[in-house]
């Protein structure tokens, strides 16, 4: 009758991988991978050391941004980015509504469902940058190629979420409308549309936000917008102008995020 076998301290049991052997094997595998991975990353430390001075200049540029000397280029890039964002969101949402309805299993016949779902899959699988490279090669430099890229990317995003949303609607409302003898168009208009509209507006606002962020990136491959200006500024080592552009991007994204969350709350 001794209590000595009874543990006096308690150890928290593992949460994720419960088997001890598997846990050790997993940790070993991670360790081996890390050693292998880090050994293949060869870093030119003297170059990094040289770069520190430049990094310091960039931080200084970020703290003392220079809005004036390149203001014409910056404002031009901003106008391109903002117009590109709005037009591509409107066009993208307008195209994705029929595709989204077609990709909802409870509204569309089977063959339309498969066509629309594959359009969505293609649009989601390809990265914006890669699409932008191709569209710039086809349509030439400038915001028009950017507009097409963002519209294409919007289709995959909005149509998928809209279709998933339509599939989750309250079926009893749809059945009630159907029982009145409504046609398919009336069914969509009176049973589906009121249920998904608030979410569609919310998603569109969210996509507007994403499209602005992306418009800052696709300029790097020549699709116009503030990204092109930023690329030029960094290539010229004008870190104070680059800092100004980055601050403007952050400010616009913050404003867009807060106002869209406010608008969504107001609309629901």
């Amino acid at each position, binding site marked *: 009758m001794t209590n000595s076998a009874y543990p006096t301290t308690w150890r*928290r049991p593992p*949460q*994720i991988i419960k088997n001890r052997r598997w846990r050790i094997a997993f940790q070993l595998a991670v360790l081996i*991978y890390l050693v292998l*991975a*880090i050994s*293949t*990353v*060869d*870093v*030119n430390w003297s*170059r*990094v050391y*040289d*770069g520190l001075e*430049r*990094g310091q200049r*960039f931080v200084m540029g970020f703290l003392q941004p220079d809005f004036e000397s390149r203001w014409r280029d910056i404002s031009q890039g901003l*106008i*391109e980015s*903002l*117009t*590109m964002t*709005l*037009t591509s969101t*409107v066009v993208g949402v307008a195209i994705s509504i029929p595709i989204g309805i077609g990709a909802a299993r409870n509204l569309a016949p089977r063959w339309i469902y498969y066509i629309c779902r594959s359009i969505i899959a293609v649009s989601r*699988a*390809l*990265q914006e*940058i*890669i699409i932008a*490279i*191709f569209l710039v*090669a*086809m*349509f*030439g430099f*400038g*915001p*028009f190629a950017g*507009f097409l890229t963002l519209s294409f990317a919007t289709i995959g995003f909005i149509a998928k979420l809209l279709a998933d949303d339509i599939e989750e609607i309250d079926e009893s409302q749809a059945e009630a409308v159907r029982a009145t003898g409504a046609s398919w168009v009336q069914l969509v208009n009176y049973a589906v549309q*009121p249920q998904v509209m608030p979410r569609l507006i919310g998603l569109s606002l969210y996509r507007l936000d994403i499209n602005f*962020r*992306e418009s*800052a*990136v696709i300029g*790097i*491959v020549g699709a116009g917008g503030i*990204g092109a200006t*930023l*690329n030029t500024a*960094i290539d010229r*080592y004008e870190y104070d102008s*680059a800092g100004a552009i*980055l601050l403007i*991007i*952050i400010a616009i*994204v*913050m404003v867009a*995020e807060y106002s869209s969350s406010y608008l969504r709350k107001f609309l629901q």
Partner: protein
Amino acid sequence: MTEISHYSQVWSYRTPRGRLALWGAWLALVALFVFCWQVMTKDTIWFFVTDAPRQAADIGNRMMPPRWSYLPELWAPLWDTINIATLGTIGGVIMAVPVAFMAARNTTPSARILRPLALFIIVASRSINSLIWALLLVAIIGPGLLAGIVAIALRSIGFVGKLLYEAIEETDANQIEAITATGASGAQVLSYGIVPQIMPAFWGITVFRWDINIRESTILGLVGAGGIGLKLQASLNTLAWSQVTVILLLILATVVLSEWVSARVRHAII
């Protein structure tokens, strides 16, 4: 007095005033769209746009058939790409955890100073794409894998930090109170009260971000940050479209595979 004539005979969803406001909002949207369209296409050369289908057919012809003999040259850059994503994710998560604890309302050491600072870090990291981070870092620390890893890590802070701090704020206060009632210190409350509750969310977020990072690291090479994107850039610059096809197919396969892995792991955890 059997019929009530002042009721409208036709049912409508909105009041006339509501309909007018809605109509006005649509009109404003259309007007804004037309205006933006005019501004945007001011400098567009329409000849290039009408010429696009011919260009597309031309590029399509050059891309086919894919040059499969190029594939063996791509394994090393692919390994680099996966390393950029994985090491970047690890670095990002390590930096994101303290930021998340500073940003969460129930664990922040000071709500006045540190919390707004942490929220600003999260927003700044989220609003700048990893490609822009890479562009900056290539200029600062030189081209190579390190720039890509740091870019991915900096971009991941915002994403992981935001989701993690929301998970921390959603923890069950009762469990934390129970731990506090045993006389646990602040660190012990953190370790026994909060960490076990957010662990599944933490691993889920990490794996999810790793999946996104694989996707993003494939293109970081376009600005010189290493990986398979470098090969893509080289092939594009030499107009070797048949090699571009091979690279794109490999990227697509990698992305699909990583998405599958991440979905399986998240399914197993949650």
